Every structure is written in structure tokens, then in C-alpha cells.
């Protein structure tokens, strides 16, 4: 059998499908047969290329030629020219919107350049349980170079120059933090890796530890050398068993190869790492609470200052950094501060990993340069909103963040812009919402989370958030007043101003930002007693359409609370007092006679 020489990949994603990709595929298959090319050319349907805007897409392999907006009428020409004569069909090549240049190799297209993998460089590429594969990809080279060729001060200078800021949420400049810890005089210091990752829906840190544990170990050792610490601690939640296991394997290998332990790589620097387990409390991600938890005390935050850099674990200077922050560090030393600083915006350098979730086509983990817009992330990388629904909002920063709207679609994503827009970077959760999501209910969901996770140490957070949650509950039940919206605003602001730790200081954000950006939805709930997304059950009414009801009694028999009455062959009626809005009747009715009002 002859070996296939060409693969024609026809996009079978939802959007391209809607624009005739199926016909294109059929057409290609017919043409291949009619030209007798079955043994050489194969046309195949693939998943979404994510580039739906210019669909349908046809990609030719192995030469990577990328044809856009292909019509069934173009198929004959593509086959004739590209495959038989070996010439590209220029008019169908992707045109760069800015330079107007026709680009044939998809690897040079703006879209495919949108993701850059620094922190995730080895995830999905190497075997995380094999240290040799890590070494082959420059592993431990940064550590070796720093230990042998640089003073701690010089290494810190590089880090400062790179502009790297903490990826755990706060965005504090990493080099500066190391410098502060270095300057504190103490016989014993610690470096800590914060792998608590408590944001609902976030899994960036877990993926890094599962996919590339050595990078974290290497960066922690560099941190130890720079700050003057000989001991590292990884605080990881016990719910991440696989990450823990891979980390343990990596630590063992690292010791065997001499990257951890005494006199690392022939220098007089010694460093080792221990693992500490968290029980999965959100507040334990906060660095002071984390430290107390590691000390065996209650996981409660304490007032800063003193900062951990001055007095942390066991009262000793402690440098806390996030997993993703660490994952960037070896690359910065290998490729240089200038290279790193060339990626991103003026005050936010490098990339950020996001866990893209919610009502989006391509749910997954992405790493994008700072400064990319939400529109690019959602529509180009994320493949747009699922089921062609309308985009409503995107939540960033988890329970501490806020909701951004259509207005913000073209805002470049970086630490400062997100804060200016009323949200925050957070650790990288990004949840996309569509027209079916009720923003009041979303705010309530996050508040519920905060109320459960508040440690209860200070009253604005412990009591205030509970009150916020009650107010939101009242509004979603249709009992809210205009005064309640004002109360939400005022109380929210007070909680932010007076809480002890970052949890309370940011917990009102989901409520405040939805009030700012979706006031009309709050007003509808309060004034019209309506929930346009049909989420708030108390504001819904299940009704029988008399014209359509034939009196089959099916609904009445299925209603769990006997709220439906009516004789056989008579129009039925739903008792709104009794109805619990479970929707059983709507589901069962074969005549479309039940509607939601």
C-alpha cells in the first residue's frame, strides 16, 4: 500500500460546521476518488482550530498551509493547484489584518503565536517522573549557573530586571521580595512554595506540579541561595495526591543527582525541601495563615507587618512564592532578564497561565503573554462561547475578583488594568459566562464561598460577609428593595476597608463589581421581580398555556408536591403557592403547554 503523502485537515468545529465544512469535506473526498488519489491524499475532519472567525479552515499537511474561508466551490482548485501542481492558492491564504500580507505557514500566524509557554514549557512535553528529560531541556542549568557564576545579589538583580511579579494573586515584584528577605539578618531562613491553590476552578499550579515538578524544586533552590535559606517547604493541599506523588519522586531524583542536599554541584551551598500538607482551607493560601498552619497552629492570618520576609515560619525570615512564579524563574536565568521583560506590558512582564472554564468551547489551560485582550482569549484561543450564545461576562480572580463585561473585551489583561476594571488577576481562574447566567446569583455563589471559608477571626469579614450574602439571597428571592442595593454597596466598601487579611479585603468584589457592571439586572430583580436568565427560582412562574393543554394529566401525576390540578381532558392549573419550581412538569409535557414566565 502506498504511503499517504498529503493530509487535508478540514475543521469540524461548531462554527466551521455551521459554515459548510461538512460539504467541503464531502467534496474533497469525491474529488480525491475521481482523480484517483486515494492512496496519496487523505481528507479528514479535525477538532476546532480555534480560528472560527475565518472559517471554514482547511489545513494542508505536512507543509502547514492554512486556507481560510474555504467554500465548497474552492475544493477543485485546491486539489488541482496545491496537490497536483504543487502551487499554493494565494487568494485563500490567511491575510494578516495589519500587514495585509498573505501568510501560508500557520505557525507564523498571529493567532498561533498568541500562546507562549514559559511556565508550562515542559508540561505535556516531558515525562515528569524522569529527571533526565528535564535535564535535557536545560533543567538545573539555571541553578548551576547561579551557584557557580553569580553572587546572590547579582542573581537578584537579574530577577528584578526581568520584572517578574508574583503569580499567586498579589503581583508583588519577586526580585524585590527576595532582596528584602536577603537583607534581614538571621541564622536560619526559609523559602516556601505556596501550592495551596484554593480558588474554585483553578488548576494552574496543580498542572505545573504534576507536569514539571523539577522546575519548582530548581527555582526554590535558587531562591534559597539568593535569600540565604537552606531549607525549603512546599505547602500543598492534600487533595492533590498526584501532584504530591510526582513532587516526591522529583525530590528523590533531585537528591540522587545532587541538586538537593549538601554542597550542591560542588559549591558550598546546601539546600533541601520538605513537604507540608494543607487541609484545603481557602484562607490557608494567604501567606501568614499558611505559615501558621505549617507551624501546627490554626490557619488564621495575622496582621502584616511583620511580613513573612521579616518574621515568618518559626519567627524566621521566610520568602513565600507561588508555584507558577517559581516555574518562570529557571527560564529567566537561562534566557535572560531582557528576553523575559520583552514579553508583556509596561508593568506586567511575561505570561500568565489561566484555567479557562465556563461557557466556552475550548475549556482548558492556556498560557498567554500579559497584555493580551479578553477578546483574543475568549474568541480566538477559547473558540468562543458555547452553543453560539451571547457572551455576558468573564470572572477573573476567583472569589476575590470581579466580573468584567463586553466593555472590557479589548482591555489588555495585566495586573493594573484588571484592578482598574474592578477585578484582579488572582491566581488565574477565568470563568466565562453567557446570557444564561444570572449575575446576582453569581455574586451570591461567591459570597457563599467566602462565608464558608472566612476564618472568623475578624468581625467585618465574619459578620459582614454573612450580611452581604443575606442581602443577595433576599434579592434573588424577589424580596429585595432599592435600599438593599445601597446597603450592599456601603457594607461591601466597609468590609474591604476594615478586614484583617486579603480574604476579607477582597470578598465583596464579586458583589460590588456586578452591581457596577450589571445594575440593570439587580434593578430587574428588585423592581420587576424578574430574573432574565431564569436562574432565580423564586422569581419564576411555571404556567399552563390553556390553548395547548389537552388535559392528559401527565404533569399532575409527575408533580412531586401535587401543585397541579385539573380533570382529565380539562385545562390544568398550577398552584403557585405550592409550586417548588422543580420543572418536572415542563420536562414531562409533550405538548409544550408549560412555560416559564
Amino acid at each position, binding site marked *: 500500500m502506498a504511503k499517504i503523502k498529503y493530509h487535508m485537515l478540514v475543521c469540524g468545529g461548531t462554527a466551521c460546521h455551521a459554515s459548510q465544512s461538512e460539504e467541503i469535506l464531502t467534496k474533497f473526498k469525491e474529488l480525491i476518488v475521481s482523480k484517483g488519489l486515494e492512496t496519496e491524499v487523505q481528507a479528514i475532519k479535525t477538532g476546532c482550530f480555534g480560528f472560527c472567525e475565518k472559517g471554514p479552515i482547511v489545513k494542508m499537511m505536512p507543509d502547514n498551509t492554512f486556507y481560510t474561508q474555504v467554500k465548497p466551490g474552492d475544493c477543485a482548485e485546491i486539489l488541482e493547484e496545491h496537490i497536483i501542481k504543487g502551487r499554493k492558492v494565494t487568494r485563500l491564504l490567511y491575510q494578516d489584518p495589519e500587514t495585509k500580507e498573505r501568510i501560508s505557514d500557520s505557525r507564523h500566524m498571529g493567532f498561533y503565536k498568541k500562546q507562549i509557554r514559559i511556565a508550562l514549557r515542559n508540561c505535556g512535553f516531558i515525562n515528569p517522573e524522569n529527571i533526565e528529560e528535564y*535535564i535535557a531541556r536545560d533543567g538545573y542549568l539555571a541553578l548551576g549557573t547561579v551557584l557557580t557564576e553569580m553572587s546572590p545579589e547579582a542573581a537578584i538583580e537579574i530577577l528584578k530586571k526581568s520584572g517578574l511579579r508574583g503569580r499567586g494573586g498579589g503581583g508583588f515584584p519577586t526580585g524585590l521580595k527576595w532582596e528584602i528577605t536577603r537583607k534581614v539578618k538571621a541564622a536560619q531562613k526559609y523559602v516556601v512554595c505556596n501550592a495551596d491553590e484554593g480558588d474554585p476552578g483553578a488548576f494552574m499550579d496543580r498542572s505545573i506540579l504534576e507536569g514539571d515538578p523539577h522546575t519548582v524544586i530548581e527555582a526554590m533552590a535558587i531562591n534559597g541561595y539568593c535569600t540565604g535559606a537552606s531549607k525549603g517547604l512546599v505547602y500543598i493541599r492534600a487533595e492533590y495526591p498526584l501532584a504530591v506523588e510526582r513532587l516526591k519522586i522529583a525530590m528523590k531524583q533531585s537528591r540522587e543527582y545532587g541538586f538537593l542536599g549538601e554542597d550542591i554541584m560542588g559549591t558550598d551551598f546546601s539546600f533541601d525541601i520538605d513537604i507540608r500538607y494543607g487541609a484545603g482551607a481557602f484562607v490557608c493560601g494567604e501567606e501568614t495563615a499558611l505559615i501558621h498552619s505549617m507551624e501546627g497552629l490554626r490557619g488564621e492570618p495575622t496582621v502584616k507587618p511583620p511580613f513573612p520576609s521579616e518574621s515568618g515560619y518559626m519567627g524566621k525570615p521566610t520568602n513565600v512564592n507561588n508555584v507558577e512564579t517559581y516555574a518562570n524563574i529557571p527560564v529567566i536565568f537561562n534566557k535572560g532578564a531582557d528576553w523575559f521583560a520583552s514579553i508583556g506590558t509596561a508593568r506586567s512582564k511575561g505570561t500568565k497561565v489561566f484555567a479557562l472554564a465556563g461557557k466556552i468551547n475550548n475549556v482548558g489551560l492556556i498560557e498567554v503573554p500579559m497584555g493580551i485582550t479578553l477578546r483574543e482569549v475568549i474568541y480566538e484561543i477559547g473558540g468562543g462561547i458555547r452553543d453560539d450564545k451571547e457572551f455576558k461576562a468573564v470572572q477573573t480572580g476567583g472569589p476575590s475578583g470581579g466580573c468584567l463585561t463586553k466593555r472590557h473585551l479589548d482591555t489588555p489583561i495585566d495586573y493594573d488594568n484588571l484592578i482598574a476594571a474592578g477585578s484582579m488577576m488572582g491566581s488565574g481562574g477565568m470563568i466565562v459566562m453567557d446570557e444564561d447566567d444570572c449575575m446576582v446569583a453569581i455574586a451570591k455563589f461567591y459570597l457563599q464561598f467566602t462565608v464558608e471559608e472566612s476564618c472568623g477571626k475578624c468581625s467585618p469579614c465574619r459578620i459582614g460577609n454573612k450580611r452581604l450574602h443575606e442581602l443577595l439571597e433576599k434579592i434573588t428571592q424577589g424580596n429585595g428593595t432599592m435600599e438593599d442595593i445601597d446597603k450592599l454597596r456601603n457594607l461591601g466598601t466597609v468590609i474591604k476597608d476594615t478586614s484583617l487579611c486579603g480574604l476579607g479585603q477582597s470578598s465583596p468584589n464579586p458583589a460590588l463589581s456586578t452591581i457596577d457592571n450589571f445594575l440593570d439586572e439587580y434593578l430587574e430583580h428588585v423592581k420587576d421581580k424578574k430574573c432574565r436568565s431564569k436562574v432565580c427560582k423564586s422569581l419564576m412562574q411555571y404556567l399552563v398555556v390553556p390553548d395547548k393543554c389537552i388535559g392528559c394529566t401527565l404533569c399532575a401525576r409527575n408533580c412531586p408536591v401535587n401543585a397541579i390540578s385539573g380533570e382529565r381532558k380539562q385545562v390544568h392549573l398550577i398552584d403557585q403557592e405550592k409550586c417548588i419550581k422543580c420543572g418536572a412538569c415542563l420536562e414531562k409535557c409533550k405538548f409544550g403547554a408549560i412555560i416559564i414566565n
Partner: protein
Amino acid sequence: MEKIKSLADLKKMQENLRAKIELREKSNDPDTRIQVKVAMATCGIASGAKEVMETFIEEFTKRNIDAVVTQTGCMGYCYAEPTVEVTKPGAEPITFGYVDVKKASRIIDKYIINNELVDGIIPVNYQSIDKN
């Protein structure tokens, strides 16, 4: 394992290992090694990646195909787990999504043996930094 005693040691070791990996990745001899990487993060394992990996290993041994099956971390395509990346010598890597035990056998029959593609390919939409 002899410990690495200096930066020069490390670089030497890296040189050797890199050559090994290069051989694996860029080999032009079509009869030698084929690389199969199974994404085995929590998401992949939850959707059956372990069984898929075992299938690959078993089938390769049974059919006497010289291939390397490795596990790797999350590739980011969590919506399409389990995902498997297949690199044939001299060809660009191809990522397959929604791979179950059955599909694993189909990938071997169709793509690995015959160079035909199988449904469910995920277009690679990122570049690694080392290509910059």
C-alpha cells in the same frame, strides 16, 4: 547514581541526554522509534488515561512495534481528555483527543502503521518557547 559535582558535569550530562532525545525526536529512519505521550494529569487519569497508556504499551509489544510510550503532564486540552500526542520520526507531533482504549488501537492501525489520520485531532495552538 553518581552525583553531579559541577556545572561542567551538568553540561556534559545534558549534552549526552540531549543527543538521546534528539535521536528520538528527529530520527529519519521510519522503522525506528515512534513516540507516544499520554497526558496523565488528574484530568487525564480521571478520564481513563491509564488504561489508554497500558493499551499502547500492550499493543506495541504484541505487534512488535518499536515505540516509546511516555506519560506527561496536562497538555491543556482538558475538554478532550484523555489526550495523546504521537510523534512519528520526521513528522510534526499530532495530538489526538478523546482517546479511549478502542481509539488507541485505531490510532495504531491507522496513523502509526498506515499514516492515515483518525478523527479527533486537536490542532496545536501554542508554540513552545524553545522554538522562538
